[in-house]
């Protein structure tokens, strides 16, 4: 059929089956949907192990320790021991030893997250937020200066008010209830509007993404029918 091999044909049938099993959720949670979900998780887990093994563990741990020269082996001895400790964490008896590895991973992960956030987001974005009122850059914009200034002020207000919405510092108000200062409250309300706009755009984006996936599935079904019809 159209040059498709048996494997492809079986694959299309399997794909159709699991697609329909998943879509059966539209009429409610059922056996087929659950089977599809568990198959999905099982396949994912299997692939994760294989990819971790092929990408890292085999080439970077096993091969150097087995086939490497002495210096390579010594260099990878310590991470090898750490990996062993991490594996031992699965056993309750040796779980405490794995804590060393976990703390190491957490420390490195936290450092990269902090460094990346500071260098890659906080400083550049603050700089970017301030630059919207930079007259030299405003002059380079194709639109009129007043439009650019208006947009710049709007963006600055949006950024600051959005940040103010997440400002949780408060003073003791009536009946000892925490209450933000009035000007922060006003700013936060404006920020809430900007957040609603942002989330609205995000929602529209998710709808587009899921709609594209729906289109792809329908296209798959149409292709299957086309294959059946020859």
């Amino acid at each position, binding site marked *: 059929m159209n040059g498709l091999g048996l494997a492809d044909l079986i694959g299309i049938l399997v794909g159709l089956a699991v697609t329909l099993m998943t879509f059966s959720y539209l009429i409610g949670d059922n056996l087929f949907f659950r089977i599809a979900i568990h198959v999905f998780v099982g396949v994912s887990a299997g692939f994760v192990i294989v990819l971790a093994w092929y990408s890292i563990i085999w080439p970077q741990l096993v091969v150097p320790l087995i086939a490497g020269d002495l210096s390579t082996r010594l260099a990878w001895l310590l991470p090898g021991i750490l990996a062993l400790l991490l594996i031992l964490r699965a056993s309750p008896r040796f779980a405490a030893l794995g804590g060393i590895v976990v703390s190491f991973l957490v420390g490195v992960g936290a450092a990269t997250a902090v460094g990346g956030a500071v260098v890659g987001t906080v400083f550049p974005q603050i700089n970017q937020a301030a630059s919207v009122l930079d007259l030299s850059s405003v002059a380079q914009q194709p639109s009129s200066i007043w439009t650019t200034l208006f947009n710049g002020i709007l963006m600055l207000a949006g950024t600051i008010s959005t940040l103010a919405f997440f400002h949780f510092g408060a003073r003791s108000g009536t009946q000892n209830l925490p209450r933000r200062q009035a000007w922060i409250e006003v700013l936060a309300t404006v920020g809430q509007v900007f957040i609603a706009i942002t989330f609205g755009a995000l929602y529209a984006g998710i*709808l587009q993404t899921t709609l594209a996936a729906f289109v792809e599935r329908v296209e798959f079904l149409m292709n299957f029918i086309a294959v059946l019809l020859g």
Partner: protein
Amino acid sequence: MKHNLRTILLALIAGFAGLVVLVGYFIDIPLLTDLRRDFLRWGVLLSSVAIMVGVANLFQVHWRRVRTRQPGGMYSFILILSMIVTLIIAGFFGPTAASSQWIYNHIQVPIEASLLSLLAVVLTYAAVRLLRHRPNLFSFVFVLTALLVLLGAVSMPQGMSIPYVADLRLWIEQILVTSGARGLLIGVGLGTLATGLRVLFGVDRPYGG
């Protein structure tokens, strides 16, 4: 006392490894460069081992459910079976082999894509009912923005195009959405900074101790 020593030891390990890596973002100290790179590579290696340990735990949990014939044991059996079959095929032939790609293309992709397709229905349904449950200003702004962005992202049928919609969508995205997203990003960055520093200084210890 033993507990405290262990806590201190773990906090020192996390703090030392983290600070060595963190310094590299700002200052390039030759003495620490090699150490930092080794730490990062070790992190990569140990993360992959941690993933395998996690999957092994998943297997253990579901195997227990199968063995003890708990409710849902049948699903656990299916999960384990799928995992083992994938492990054998992809492990033996390699992840880029045709057999592995067959599993991925004809099982993994259809299920995930179908799940995402279901999400389109659910999200539409939720948006339809949003103003019923929360008829306030922010919900109204939210829905209006979503509609305008969506309207600007699709093409209208021939001869029915709405003028200025694309420009309006562009302005919303470039000005309003960008400013709001920037505020969120800076907030997330500051939150990451605070949380990360707490971890590095041992105030928060997600590794236990």
